[in-house]
C-alpha cells in the first residue's frame, strides 16, 4: 500500500465537505423560498379575494369557503370597467411607443453625436430623475389647465411620453453599438435617421424590450397623476376606477381584487411578448470572430 500524501494543488482543488455544501444549498433554497412566498402571496390573495363573497373578504384563509365567479361577472358586465380598461390600454400603449421612439432617439443622439453642450444636456436630463413626481404634479396640472388638456388622454399621457430613465437606459445601450456599424452605414449612403432606424435600433432590441416592459407597467399601474388630471368616470384608468369601487361606508375589496386580477392579463401579455427579445450578445455577433 502506498503512502499517499495530498499535494497543495490537490488540496486546493478538493471539493468542500458535503455537509457544509448541503448547508449552503439549504440556506440558498430557504432564502429563495422566502422571497418567492413574499412575491406570490399578494397575487394569491388577490385571486383568492376575487373568488370570495363580500362577507368572507376579511377572512384570511387562502382557499375561499364558497368560491364564486360572481365578482368577475359583475365587473365584466359593469360598463365602467370596460372603459377604464380601454383607457388604460390606449394610454399605456401610446406612452410605451412614444418612449421607445423618443428615448431611443435622444439616447442615440447623446451617445453617437459630438456637439457643444452634449454633456450639459445629458446631465440636465438625468437631474430630472431626482425630482419626485409629487413635486411635478402641480406644474403638470397648471400646464394641463392652461392648455385645456384636463380630463383628456393627452393630459394623462403628456408627462410620460419621454422619460429621463428611458433616455439614460437607451444611451447606455447605444454605447455598445460599435461606431464602425454607423460609419459603414454612412459610407453606404444612409442618412442619420435611416442609420438610427435600420442599424442601431435592431441592435438594441433587448434594451427596447426592457424599456417597453418598464414603461407599459409604469403607465398601467399609474395612479396619482391620472387621478388628479381626470374628472369624468369615463376617463379613469383601471387603478383610478378600481379605487372607487364600493361606497362611502365600505370598500368592495372583492371587486377591487377582481378588477386587479383582470388587469394583470395585459401586463402578462406584454411581458411574454417582449421578454423573448431580451437576449444578450446580439450586438457582438457581427463583430470579429
Amino acid at each position: 500500500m502506498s503512502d499517499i500524501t495530498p499535494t497543495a494543488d490537490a488540496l486546493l482543488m478538493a471539493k468542500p465537505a458535503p455537509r457544509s455544501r448541503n448547508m449552503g444549498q439549504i440556506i440558498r433554497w430557504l432564502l429563495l423560498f422566502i422571497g418567492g412566498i413574499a412575491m406570490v402571496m399578494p397575487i394569491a390573495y388577490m385571486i383568492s379575494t376575487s373568488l370570495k363573497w363580500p362577507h368572507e373578504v376579511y377572512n384570511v384563509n387562502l382557499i375561499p369557503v364558497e368560491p364564486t365567479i360572481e365578482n368577475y361577472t359583475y365587473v365584466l358586465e359593469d360598463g365602467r370597467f370596460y372603459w377604464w380598461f380601454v383607457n388604460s390600454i390606449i394610454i399605456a400603449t401610446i406612452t410605451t411607443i412614444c418612449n421607445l421612439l423618443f428615448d431611443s432617439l435622444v439616447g442615440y443622439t447623446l451617445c453617437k453625436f459630438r456637439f457643444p453642450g452634449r454633456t450639459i444636456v445629458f446631465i440636465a436630463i438625468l437631474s430630472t430623475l431626482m425630482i419626485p413626481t409629487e413635486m411635478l404634479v402641480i406644474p403638470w396640472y397648471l400646464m394641463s389647465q392652461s392648455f385645456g388638456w384636463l380630463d383628456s388622454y393627452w393630459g394623462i399621457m403628456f408627462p410620460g411620453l419621454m422619460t429621463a430613465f428611458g433616455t439614460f437606459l437607451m444611451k447606455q445601450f447605444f454605447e455598445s453599438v460599435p461606431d464602425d456599424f454607423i460609419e459603414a452605414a454612412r459610407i453606404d449612403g444612409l442618412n442619420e435617421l435611416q442609420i438610427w432606424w435600420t442599424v442601431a435600433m435592431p441592435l438594441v432590441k433587448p434594451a427596447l424590450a426592457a424599456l417597453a416592459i418598464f414603461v407599459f407597467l409604469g403607465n398601467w399601474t399609474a395612479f396619482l397623476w391620472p387621478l388628479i388630471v381626470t374628472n369624468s368616470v369615463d376617463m379613469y384608468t383601471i387603478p383610478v376606477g378600481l379605487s372607487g369601487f364600493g361606497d362611502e361606508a365600505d370598500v368592495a375589496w372583492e371587486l377591487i381584487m377582481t378588477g386587479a386580477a383582470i388587469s394583470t392579463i395585459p401586463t402578462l401579455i406584454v411581458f411574454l411578448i417582449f421578454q423573448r427579445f431580451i437576449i444578450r450578445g446580439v450586438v457582438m455577433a457581427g463583430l470579429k470572430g
Partner: protein
Amino acid sequence: MANLALRRLTKSYGTTEVLHGISLDVADGEFVVLVGPSGCGKSTTLRMIAGLEETTSGIIEIGGREVNNLEPKERDIAMVFQNYAIYPHMSVKKNIAFGLRSSKMPKADKEKRILEVASILDMVPLLDRKPNALSGGQRQRVAIGRAMVRDPAVFLFDEPLSNLDAQLRTQMRLEIKKLHQRVGNTIIFVTHDQVEAMTMADRIVIMKDGYIQQVGTPAEVFHKPANTFVARFIGAPSMNLLDGIWDGETITLAGDQKVRVPALQTAAGSKVLLGARADDLKAGNPNTVLSGKVMLREPLGSETLIYVDTASGEIIAKADGRTPPQVGDAVTLGADPENIHVFDAKTGEALT
C-alpha cells in the same frame, strides 16, 4: 475606378497636429498599402479619404474631383473595417445588399449584382446565413462583398486581416490580391504588418509620426530604404545597423574592421550607420563586414537565423538550414558592396 490624390493633407486634434502635410498620388487601379506602427497616422489618413474624419487642411481628390466637402456616400468609395462591421441582425444577402440600398438600380439588377459578388467571393451557399453562423474568414468576405457590390471608384481597407488567425490571414491576403487582379479597382489598404504590405502592394507608403517616410514598390523599399526607420521596419528580421566612420573610401567599424562600400555623398570623417540585412550577410564573402561568435540559433527549416556577438554589438545573419554553425563557433560574415546600405548617423537618411 479612379485615381486618388492627397495634397499637403494635415489633421489636427485641438492644438495637436497628427498628420503633417502628406502628399500622395495613387494611380487608377493601383493597390497601395499604407503601413507603419500604431499612431503613425495611416488610419487617420484612410478615414479622411473616406470622409469619416474632417480634413484640417489640404486637398483630397478622387477621380480628379475634390471631395473634401463631400459626404462619405458622395465620394464613390467603399470601406472594409477592421471589425468587419457586418450587421448581426441581417443575413449575408441583406448585408451584401445593404451597399445598394441608396442605389437607384432596378431590383432585378440588384439581385443579379448581389449574386455576382457572392459567387466571386464563393458565398452563394451562405447567403441566407446570419453572421453569427459564419467563421471569421467568411465574415471578412461578407464585409468585402458589401464593399464590392457598389463597384466603387476606390476601395478602402482598414486593417481588415488583423483579427484573423495566421493561417486565415495568409489565405485572405491571397484572396484580396486575386480579387484586385480580377476587378482592378483602386485599393488603399492600411496595415501595421510589413509582410502584408510587401506581399500585397503595388506600392507601399511607409508612415511614421504623421509623416510619409518613403513611397515605393516593395522591392524599392526593401532594397533601397530611404532612411533607418524604413530599413528597420521593412524586412524580417530587421536590418542590422552598425556604427561606423566614413573615411572617403571605406567605412571603419568598431574593432577597426574596414568595409568597402560604393562612393557616398558625405564628407570623409562623417559618422554613419552601416546597414546589412541578415539575408545578405554570408560567411565566406570576400568583402568582410565583421566577425564574431555565434550566441544563439533559431532554426527555421530551410535556413537558420544566427545571432552573432561582434565588436559592433549583436547582429543577425542567416545560415544554411542543414549545416548551420554551432553556438560558440567563430564566424566571419561579409556582404557584396551593392547590398550594403549606409545612412547618415545623425539624420538617418540614406547615403547610398
